[in-house]
């Protein structure tokens, strides 16, 4: 895993990305999802998070969580279709972990994906870097 820097934002080469600034770590049919360093820096001080429930079924593009910062509330869209198999409970009492470690302890939820084909639509680190460049 290597880090890529785009201006003041950090990306990881081993992750996939969405247009709406989520990251996805694919491991077979399991996908861990969080928001990117770019997204957390834009939102700034995160003070709350509304997480999905385990067992919840979601489709690609559906609003699945809300990240609440002092500045704004941001909808989080499911990057893939599937079933929620785990959520990061630690965020309920320490949502600031998303600011401190967006690609690590600030992860949001884990999906069991039902349509692996969808992952082809996700952006590579290079493409996502293009998207946020200059911002």
């Amino acid at each position, binding site marked *: 895993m290597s880090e890529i820097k785009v201006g003041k934002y950090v990306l990881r080469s081993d992750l996939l990305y969405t247009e709406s600034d989520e990251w996805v770590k694919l491991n077979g049919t399991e996908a861990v999802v969080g928001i990117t360093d770019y997204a957390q820096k834009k939102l*700034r*001080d995160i003070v*709350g998070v*509304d997480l999905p429930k385990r067992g919840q079924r979601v489709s690609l593009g559906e609003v699945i969580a*809300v990240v*609440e910062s002092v500045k704004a*509330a941001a909808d989080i869209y499911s990057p893939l279709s599937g079933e929620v198999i785990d959520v990061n409970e630690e965020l*309920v009492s320490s949502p*600031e972990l998303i600011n401190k470690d967006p690609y690590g302890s600030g992860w949001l939820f884990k999906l069991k994906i039902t349509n692996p084909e969808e992952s082809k639509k996700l952006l590579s680190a290079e493409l996502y870097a293009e998207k946020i460049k200059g911002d």
Partner: protein
Amino acid sequence: MFWTPLINFEEKLGASLGEFAGWKMPMTYSSYQEEHMAVRTKSAFFDLSHMGRLRVTGKLQEFENLIAKKISDSPPGNMIGPTAFLNDRAGFVDDVMTYKVSESEFLVVTNAINREKVINWIRKNSTLEVQDLTFDLVMIALQGRGIWEVVEKPDLSPLQFKLNAKFEGHEVFLLSRSGWTGEDGVEFWAKPEVAQSILERLIVRGIKGAGLVTRDSLRQEMGFVLYGEDIGEDVNPVEARYWVYSLEKDFIGKSALLEILRAGVDKLRIGLKLPKNQRVIPRNSSKIKIAGKEVGYVTSSTFSPYLSRVIGMGYLSSRHFLVGGNAEVEVRGKDYSVKLSDFPLLK
């Protein structure tokens, strides 16, 4: 867009910048929660160079006619405020701090968003001279429960000020014992290079930078209003429960204010506290309901690091002004329980 003259210095200290009222200013340094707690337990500095600073000269009587609080009783060297300029419906043109330099010279600190409006309003309603000092001097606040452990304590009582004062080995244009955080401290106006030297000296002693996000959470804990969010041209001081006037003299807006006092008001400003662990932030215009009926709206809200809960303020129908009772606030289509609380929310 205007920039604080200290922007390079502050970026080197790690400031993350953002826009506020047409100014590029430090929003946070580390995290606003840490900065907030630094003010409540130790100390921090704020760059407030976006705030409008005016020198007004002319007849005291003319100035009295503009400003809602009586200033002729105060000796020179005192700040009078917060007070306000009101329109002829008694709505807020701006809420301001005034500084009485002499019987014919006054300084006024305006909200950044209202600087030009206030200059024009004073000129329109009086023959007073107005000089805009905003772009010549920066304004820095040094605030905190432990402020005197890192900053030399000036020989000033709260709300007193001195011009051309010696402070931390430099001469500053103005030094005052004041702030807007609920903690003790000083504010000073100085040339940018002088302010930077003073800050460099204080940073060595451990003072940390704090941004405007932090200032916002501090003022909300105290129940202080922000122009444009909680008050404006269509809100009067009675509704805002913001006692910025003295009725023993005349000023623009006074007759409207007297009528409002006689007739009573339909809405009143109220503080809000959400339960701990309910980490949802209502936004400006979120509905306040009692027993399912809409009875008010939110104007400001944030997460209070000190109280460790979401707080805010808004306006409630005066028939439903049930301080201490519970209500609901609607956020993204869902109702959340909220306690109607009086100010300051910090207790």
